[in-house]
C-alpha cells in the first residue's frame, strides 16, 4: 500500500505531468507527449496481463483496434461524436476479450502467445473484409472537433492516471498475488486452490478495457484509422511488448518510462538520422534489451539494492 513518502513522490510526479504542457508550449512537442501517454496506457494495460500474470500476449492490437473502431464506427454510421467511443470502445474490447480468453487461456506459454497472435490477425482480416460495416481498407477519416493539443494532453493524462491507479490497486490486492503466483508456477497455484482461469480473466479484462480506451482515444486524436494500422502486428502488438520490455516488465512505472523512451528516441532518430533512423533505433533497442534485460525500472531496482547492500526482496519490484 502507499506509504507517505511514496504518496508524496506520486503527487510530485503528477504535478510535473500537469504543468509539463504549460512549460512546453509548442504543439509539436505536445504531440509527442500525447503519443507517449497513449503508449504508456497501452503498455500499462499489457503489463497487467503479460507482466504480472505472465500471460504474454502478442495480440493486444485486437483490443486496441476494436476500441479505435468503436469510436470510428459511431461517427461513420451513427453520426455521433467519436468521444462517445471512449465509453463504448473499452466495453467492446472487454466483450471481445471474453471469447479470446476462453480460447487462449486453455493454452500456456508460447502456445498462448501464438494463439493471441493469430487472434489479433483474425481481427485485422475481419475488419479489412467487412467493408460495409468498417469501410474496409479505406479506413475511417474524421474531422476532429477539438484541435487544441492541451485538451488531448490532459485527457490522455487522465486516461493514463486511471489506468495506473487501477493496475496498482489490482496488483496490490489479493488478485495481484494470485496473478504473480500463476506467473511463477501455474501448477503450484492450482494445487493451492487458486482458480487460475478465473484470475487470468481478471487480468485480461482490465487489460483489454484500458487498451480499448487507448484505441478510442487514438481514433479521436489521430482522426484516421484503417485495419492495417490499428490491428497491426508489428506496429501495435509487438511495439507494446518492446515498450514494456524497455521500461521494465511487471513494474508500476516501467511501461510509462518505456513509452517515453521509445517514442522520444524514435522521433529524435527519425528527425536527425535520415534514412538510417530505423536501423540505428533497432540496434539500440536490441542493446538495451540485451544489457538491461529487466528494463530501465527493473534494473534501477537492482542497482538500488546493490547500492544499499540490503537483502534482496521479492524480484520484480512492484
Amino acid at each position: 500500500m502507499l506509504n507517505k513518502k511514496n504518496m508524496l513522490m506520486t503527487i510530485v510526479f503528477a504535478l510535473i505531468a500537469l504543468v509539463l504542457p504549460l512549460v512546453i508550449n509548442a504543439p509539436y512537442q505536445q504531440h509527442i507527449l500525447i503519443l507517449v501517454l497513449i503508449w504508456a496506457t497501452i503498455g500499462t494495460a499489457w503489463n497487467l496481463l503479460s507482466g504480472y500474470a505472465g500471460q504474454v500476449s502478442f495480440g493486444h492490437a485486437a483490443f486496441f483496434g476494436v476500441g479505435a473502431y468503436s469510436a470510428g464506427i459511431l461517427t461513420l454510421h451513427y453520426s455521433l461524436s467519436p468521444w462517445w467511443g471512449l465509453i463504448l470502445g473499452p466495453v467492446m474490447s472487454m466483450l471481445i476479450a471474453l471469447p479470446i480468453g476462453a480460447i487462449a487461456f486453455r493454452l500456456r506459454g508460447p502456445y498462448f502467445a501464438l494463439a493471441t497472435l493469430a487472434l489479433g490477425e483474425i481481427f485485422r482480416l475481419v475488419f479489412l473484409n467487412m467493408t460495409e460495416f468498417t469501410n474496409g481498407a479505406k479506413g475511417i477519416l474524421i474531422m476532429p472537433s477539438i484541435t487544441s493539443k492541451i485538451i488531448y494532453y490532459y485527457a490522455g493524462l487522465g486516461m493514463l492516471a486511471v489506468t495506473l491507479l487501477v493496475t496498482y490497486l489490482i496488483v496490490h490486492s489479493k488478485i495481484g498475488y494470485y496473478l504473480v503466483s500463476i506467473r511463477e508456477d501455474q501448477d503450484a497455484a492450482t494445487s493451492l486452490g487458486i482458480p487460475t482461469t478465473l484470475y487470468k480473466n481478471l487480468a485480461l479484462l482490465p487489460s483489454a478495457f484500458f487498451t480499448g480506451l487507448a484505441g478510442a482515444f487514438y481514433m479521436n486524436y489521430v482522426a484516421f484509422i484503417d485495419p492495417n494500422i490499428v490491428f497491426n502486428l508489428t506496429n501495435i502488438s509487438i511495439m507494446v511488448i518492446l515498450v514494456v520490455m524497455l521500461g521494465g516488465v511487471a513494474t508500476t512505472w516501467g511501461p510509462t518510462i518505456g513509452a517515453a523512451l521509445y517514442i522520444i528516441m524514435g522521433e529524435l532518430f527519425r528527425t536527425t538520422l535520415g534514412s538510417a533512423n530505423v536501423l540505428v533505433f533497432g540496434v539500440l533497442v536490441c542493446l538495451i534489451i540485451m544489457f538491461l534485460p529487466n528494463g530501465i525500472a527493473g534494473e534501477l531496482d537492482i542497482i538500488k539494492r546493490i547500492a544499499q547492500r540490503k537483502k534482496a526482496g521479492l524480484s520484480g519490484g512492484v
Partner: protein
Amino acid sequence: MKKYRKVLTVLLLVTFLALVTTGCGGDGSSDTTVKVGVILPLTGSEAMFGEMEKNSFEMAYEELKAAGKTTVGGKEIKLMYEDDQGKQDVARSATEKLVNQDKVAMLSGGYSSACTNVIAGSAQNANVPFLIVTGSSDDITKQGWNYVFRGTAAPASKYTGAFWDMMEKVVDPQSVAIIFENTDFGTSSSKGFRTECQKRGINIVFDQAYEHGAIDFKPMLANLRSTNPDMIFATSYVMDASMIVKQMKELDFNTKLFVGNGAGYTMPEFYQNAGAASDFVASTSLWVPNVTWPGAKDYFEKYKQKFGKEPDYHGAQAYATMYVIADALGRATDLTNAGIQKALKQADIQTIMGPIKFEDWDGFTNQNKPNTYVVQWSKGKLEVIWPEDVKSASYVYPVPKWSER
C-alpha cells in the same frame, strides 16, 4: 521510496533532454528562406517509391535553381524532407514538426493513402497548404478541405478515364473479372471500376480482394479461370503484379485482355520480375515517358542517366509537383499560408504530367482533372496505345494465347 525518485529523475531528464534537443534543431527560422516540407516514405516497405520521388524533387529543384526560379521575393525556397516510414502516426508527427516547429510555408509529399489522409487532415486544421504528390484515395479531396490540393495524382476511381474510352471503341467486353489488393488504393479503384461496369451493364463474373504481399495466387486464378471472363482488371503493387501474370502463364490461363490499374503494372520492375509473361499486359497509367507533354522524355532520360534507374509515374508526379510549387510560390503576393493557398488555387501550369489546374468538380475540391492513358507491354517496352492521338504503338487485342506466342 528512493526507487521512485530515481525513476522520476531519469524519466524527466530524458524527456527534457529530448524536447530541448528537438526544440533547438528547428529554431533557426531565418527570414531568408521559404520552407517547404516534403513528407515521403524514405524507409520501410514503400521506401523504393519515396526514394524515387525524393530524387525527382531534387532534380526539379536543381533545374529550377539553374533557371533562377527558386528565389521568390528575395527568399530562397528550401525543401525540408521528413520520413513517414509509411506509418500514419509517424506522418502525423512529421506534419506536426514541420508545421509547428519548422514553420513551413506549405507542405507536399504524401505517398500512401493512409499517410496522405492524416497529413491532409492536420494541414487543413493548421491552415497550411498541402499539395499531394501521390496519395490517391478519393476521400482525401472529397472533404471540402480548401487547403488540400491534388494536382499530379488522380483520385483512384478516375485512373480509368482513357481506359473506358478504349473499352467503348475497341474491347466492348461482355464479362469482366476484378481482382485487387486489399488496400485503400485497391478498394477505391476497384469500387470505381465496379460502379462503371454496372452503369454500362457489363457482367462482373468474379470480384475478389487478395491480401497485399501474397505469394500463391493459383487458387484464386483457378477459380477465376472457371468463370471465363473476357477481360481481367487487376489492381496490385509490383511484386504481386508480376506473380499474378507469371502464375497465369504457368496455368496457361488465357483471356482476351489483362488490364492492370497502374501502380505495379507500369513499373520497370514489373517487366524485370515477370519477364516474358509481361507481354501484352495492358494497364491504365497517369504518365509514360513517351507521352507528348513537353519535358517528359527529357525527365525520363535525365533521371535514368543520373540515378541509373528508370523512373515511373511516381517520379514524374514528384518532378511535376516541384514545378507547381515553384510556380505558386513565385506568383504568391505574400508568402503566408493564406497567400500561398490563393496562388495554388489560381495555378494553371503546363508540366510533364500535362496541364495542372485545381478545380472543384464531382464533389472534389482543389482536384486537377487527370490525364490518363492506356499502355501495353511489348517485349519489355511500355507503349501508349490509347488515346489514339498520343499513341506510340497500336494496341494488340485480343492478345495471343500463351501457347501461340
